[in-house]
């Protein structure tokens, strides 16, 4: 009876560890997938922008200026996007190594949130020519806000961890 109880406890513990490791692996896989997607978008960006010219979008025919605006926004937003993906990659490596509440993670999150807001600002300029970009502005702002709040939580958690570490 006790033996079985012990075994099931151990099994559950093992299952938890395996689930956590797998979860991190899935997250890392997704980060690589999005990096690949971004590279593909960057490689085909020019061709895609030129293809857009002349197509109809929300009762508005896309002109050459519009497609040029799309291309400029795409390439200038790629830079912060690459940084955000790199930050996520670093964050996942740190978390996998058990270094969760460290100041490096906070600065990674802070810079990521600024990158997202910068991308939103770039797209906001593009909105003058291409109204559809407003969706991207809203999405980037919202995600930036969430990342910022997570960063604030991390800051508090680091302070609490330090207090706990210095309790004898």
């Amino acid at each position, binding site marked *: 009876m006790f033996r079985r109880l012990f075994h099931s406890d151990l099994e559950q513990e093992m299952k938890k560890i395996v689930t956590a490791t797998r979860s991190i692996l899935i997250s890392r896989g997704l980060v690589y997938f999005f990096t690949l997607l971004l590279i593909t978008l960057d490689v085909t960006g020019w061709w895609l922008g030129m293809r857009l010219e002349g197509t109809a979008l929300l009762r508005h025919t896309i002109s050459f200026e519009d497609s040029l605006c799309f291309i400029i926004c795409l390439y200038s937003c790629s830079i912060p996007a690459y940084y955000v993906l790199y930050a996520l990659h670093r964050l996942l490596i740190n978390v996998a190594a058990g270094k969760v509440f460290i100041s490096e993670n906070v600065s990674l999150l802070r810079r990521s949130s600024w990158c997202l807001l910068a991308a939103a600002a770039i797209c906001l300029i593009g909105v003058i020519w291409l109204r559809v970009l407003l969706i991207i502005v809203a999405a980037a702002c919202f995600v930036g806000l969430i990342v910022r709040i997570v960063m604030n939580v991390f800051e508090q958690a680091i302070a609490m961890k330090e207090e706990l570490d*210095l*309790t*004898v």
Partner: protein
Amino acid sequence: MAIIVNLDVMMAKRKIGAGELAEKIGITPANLSILKNQKAKAIRFSTLNMICKVLECQPGDILEFVPRDDDGEPDG
């Protein structure tokens, strides 16, 4: 912080080493070193209890309050 830990004095009086004391109290030598170097932010009553028991002293013998200008600050 205006609270000073005088653990060194008491350890010298009882002629006990840091490693031995840490083992008798049941904390790691690293944590004892944090306490001795005034870096600790808090001390558990259970730890204080064991220190007093091992060193045969009162909490007042190892903890001292010195009035300072930075009083009232939450952290040291």
